[in-house]
């Protein structure tokens, strides 16, 4: 295992230490393991909290700040946070107007956030959870755990954060996050596996000319293994899967070409060139785009494409000023 880390058992703590040192605009509580906006809680503002396993940086801690999250709670690598920790983040974010939980749809995240919400209600904090499940690689049926939450998480945190900053109500902030989720679809591919520090070996083995289609963000293998293909073909697989699930033709979209952590920007731009061409050729207008490593899976090589069908309000919320370590514009 080749990682720039110290003690494997301390990797999350050391990450938090680094974030604390690098970002004076954040309040990092190493004991509670939460990352909080320096000015939280803001009285009267709806609080926005998210969290999940570590290893997806900058998600979620890197999205704490003006116009986005009030607090984040990172669990162990690829392991959902525990209820006490989620509660601490919720309390830190609570300005009396309620708190929205953005929860990626994994059994562990859903259960732990649910328990935390119960604890928060004991402390008279109203919590509305929004579950994100945008990954089309997984069949959505009552016979599965449902779809995974991936790139839509970033979109939901941005839109809900902007609305909360603008004074939106608890119900409205939750509703916009839900709307973003409903209008977003994602599909990811992996060229390499990744290694959970505590495990010390890759979660799966891939041949030199193989790739995984339909991966998640936890180092799990995908739905299908195929031979390595050129970027335009991969993009076609991903966008066709998305388009089949949610027809894109005629819409204005926000598109994210998201690196999984080990893929350099150069390749993401190459992929984005293919994405832009595909969408243009299918009658889709790209109104906004984002290319980079935002929702990662440790050092996995690969990319995930997320497409959000915009509305005028969602475009406005996307464009609204944001000031976080991971996403910043307008101030």
């Amino acid at each position, binding site marked *: 295992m080749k990682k720039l880390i110290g003690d494997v058992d301390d990797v999350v703590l050391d990450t938090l230490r680094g974030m604390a040192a690098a970002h004076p605009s954040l309040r990092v509580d190493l004991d509670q393991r939460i990352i909080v906006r320096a000015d939280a809680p803001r009285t009267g503002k709806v609080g926005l909290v998210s969290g999940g*396993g570590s290893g997806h940086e900058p998600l979620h801690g890197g999205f704490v700040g003006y116009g986005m999250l009030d607090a984040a709670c990172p*669990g*162990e*690598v*690829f*392991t*959902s*946070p*525990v*209820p*006490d920790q989620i509660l601490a983040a919720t309390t830190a974010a609570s300005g009396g107007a309620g708190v929205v939980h953005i929860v990626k749809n*994994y*059994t*562990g995240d859903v*259960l*732990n956030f*649910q*328990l935390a919400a119960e604890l928060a209600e004991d402390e008279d904090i109203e919590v509305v959870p929004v579950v994100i499940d945008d990954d089309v*690689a*997984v*069949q959505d049926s009552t*016979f*599965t*755990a449902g779809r*995974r939450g991936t790139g839509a998480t970033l979109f939901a945190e941005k839109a809900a954060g902007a609305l909360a900053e603008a004074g939106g109500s608890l119900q409205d902030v939750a509703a916009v996050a839900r709307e973003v989720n409903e209008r977003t679809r994602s599909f990811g591919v992996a060229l390499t596996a990744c290694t*959970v520090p*505590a*495990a010390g*070996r890759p*979660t*799966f083995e891939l041949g030199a000319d193989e790739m995984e289609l339909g991966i*998640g963000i*936890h*180092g*799990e*293998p995908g*739905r299908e293994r195929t031979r390595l293909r050129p970027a335009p073909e991969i993009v076609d697989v991903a966008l066709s899967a998305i388009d089949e699930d949610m027809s894109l033709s005629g819409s204005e979209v926000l598109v994210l070409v998201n690196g999984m952590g080990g893929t350099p920007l150069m390749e993401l731009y190459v992929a984005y060139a293919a994405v832009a061409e595909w969408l243009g050729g299918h009658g889709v207008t790209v109104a906004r785009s984002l290319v980079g490593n935002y929702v990662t899976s440790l050092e996995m090589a690969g990319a995930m494409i997320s497409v959000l069908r915009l509305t005028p309000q969602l475009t406005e919320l996307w464009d609204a000023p944001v000031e976080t370590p991971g996403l910043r514009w307008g101030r």
Partner: protein
Amino acid sequence: MDTRRWIERFAELVAADADRLTRLDAAIGDGDHGANLNRGLRAAVEALGPDLPPGKVLMTAGRALVSKTGGASGPLYGGALRRAGKALGDAADADATALAAALRAALDAVQQLGKAVEGDKTMVDALTPAVAAYEAAAGDGPAAAARAALDAAEKGAEATVPLQARKGRASYLGPRSVGHLDPGAASTVLLFRALADAAGEG
């Protein structure tokens, strides 16, 4: 029935087998089940104060598991033990009949939280037959009942191999989840091995 010894033994077995559990989870999940349970159970054992009644032991351990494990298994095992502890109440002793009821409550808790049924390729596939076997053999005393439960848990776990997962992370793999032992079912076997060991000692 010494529930404290049960939990301690469960922690020992998981510590010894953490690597295997993690490897099972890497195959069809995210490779952290062993680390998760190990972390949670160390906290659970530490949380156990002296001289607790059997029900209180399980409730304390369950709460610690919920607080420290994370992942899907934390709330599920934690909720199960808390509910089992609640079922035992404040009684100073837990005989086989009481434990049978507690185990049933544990299974109910897992199913309420996780919504999985038998055949979904989860810990429920080991837990369900184990609880039934314990109930059926409760009349023969805690040691015999625990051995029967362990036996059933092992068979139930083994039976997850050919299944396609419908709950938890393994369900993301669709047909590719077939041919692998479910890690949560594997750790449930350890839960009942610990019970059998503890009951055998006592």
